């Protein structure tokens, strides 16, 4: 933020969009500010502050939970609405993201848009079937983008909120591993199983740390379809994960270690999800 010349408080959401979209390369939305400050991008000249725009509400609207992009992570973590959805996996993922002091400032929207490789919030949202509420141009209606399609977002698009379906019959569990308490996870697997008459009707499996960015493991999901929910054996799903992931190597783990860890975490998460009472 060292070269920022202008800080604006827009009067409306359309105002904010207009200003940033004049030049998205040199302008940015200011949410919590943690990512912008950490990145310290020297090309950034204009900050458009989202604080006055009322994007900080958590609401239950019909069959879904809507969480504003400006909701602070620590506030979200403590929200009873988040604890009551998806066996509380999103609240747990947030609780394990960085530190409490950092979460006091960081926002959910910022965390999503950062899409860090080892993030926990994004795979939690993927496994919950979340969607992003996006504005692409002033005066246009809000668009829904499934979170797995967020690569289609353009620079200057404004994230307003995240919606999570409130659906019954889903069992959720997550597993992750990190080297120390405050480190980012080496790998994580989030599982959601929709069970009808004792069989898996639909599955959402999301991973992070096992590819360049968090992803849905489609081959694992296909392999799970119509299997008995008791899931006594996990080998076939673990080998399906092999074709879903492209584990990177870094100072925390080699690709081979990550691949093995991914299989182990997937097995544990499936076992736990299968044992969640319906």
């Amino acid at each position, binding site marked *: *933020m060292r070269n920022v010349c202008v800080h604006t408080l827009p009067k409306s959401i359309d105002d904010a969009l207009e200003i940033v979209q004049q030049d998205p390369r040199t302008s940015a939305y200011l949410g919590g500010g943690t990512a912008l400050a950490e990145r310290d991008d020297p090309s950034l*000249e204009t900050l458009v502050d989202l604080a006055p725009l009322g994007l900080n509400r958590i609401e239950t609207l019909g069959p879904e939970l809507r969480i504003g992009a400006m909701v602070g992570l620590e506030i979200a973590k403590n929200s009873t609405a988040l604890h009551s959805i998806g066996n509380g996996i999103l609240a747990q993922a947030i609780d394990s993201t960085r530190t409490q*002091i950092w979460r006091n*400032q960081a926002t959910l929207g910022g965390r999503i848009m950062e899409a860090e490789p080892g993030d926990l919030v994004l795979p939690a949202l993927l496994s919950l079937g979340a969607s992003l509420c996006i504005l692409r141009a002033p005066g246009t209606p809000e668009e829904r983008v499934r979170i797995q399609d967020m690569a289609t977002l353009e620079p200057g698009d404004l994230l307003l909120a995240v919606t999570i379906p409130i659906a019954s019959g889903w069992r959720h569990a997550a597993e992750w591993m990190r080297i120390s*308490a405050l480190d980012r996870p080496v790998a994580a697997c989030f599982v959601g199983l929709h069970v009808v008459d004792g069989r898996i009707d639909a599955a959402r499996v999301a991973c992070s740390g096992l590819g360049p960015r968090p992803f849905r493991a489609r081959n694992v999901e296909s392999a799970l379809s119509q299997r008995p929910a008791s899931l006594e054996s996990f080998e076939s799903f673990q080998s399906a994960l092999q074709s879903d992931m492209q584990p990177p190597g870094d100072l925390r783990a080699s690709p081979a270690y990550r691949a093995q860890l991914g299989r182990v975490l997937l097995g544990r998460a499936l076992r736990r999800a299968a044992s969640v009472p319906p």
Partner: protein
Amino acid sequence: MTRETRRVLLEVDGNQVQAEILPGDRLLRVLRALGFSSIKYGCDTGDCGACTILVDGIPHFACLYPAVRAPGRALMTVAAMGHTDALAPLQRAFLERGAAQCGYCTPAMLLVAHALLQREHVIDEASVREALGGVLCRCTGYLKPVEAIRACSANQSAEAALPVVDSAPAIDAIPSASRTRGG
């Protein structure tokens, strides 16, 4: 494009202070330039916690906090807690238990503890470790600060009267999460 300097009033430790801020300034630079040197410069990326400050009573990293958002908010540094001749109970507890060594992280730890005690009068060890998780210490570790903070909480008043007994070595055990966590 030229940078607009803005003259603002900040409320620091209960006093109104005039400051000149640039649009991209973070609170750490602004406050240190004003002479509030108890806010330490550390990593500048929200990892070490040495720059922690209370904003409306809530701990924040001053190195990440946009200065443009500070006007109208109550900022608190450790200087507002007490001074050499009249230490706050938390400061005294830190002193009595040897919870400070080089002192670089101590202002941050005290502020985090102050915020925690304002919020919850009865605190367990896990809450203290969770709160201190954002402040890195490489001297004393965390055992003695945790003891000092717990001694100041309402439910620990009887325990605080007891002499401090050395227990297990203070390894870097913040917060006490296991290697594998999951939902």
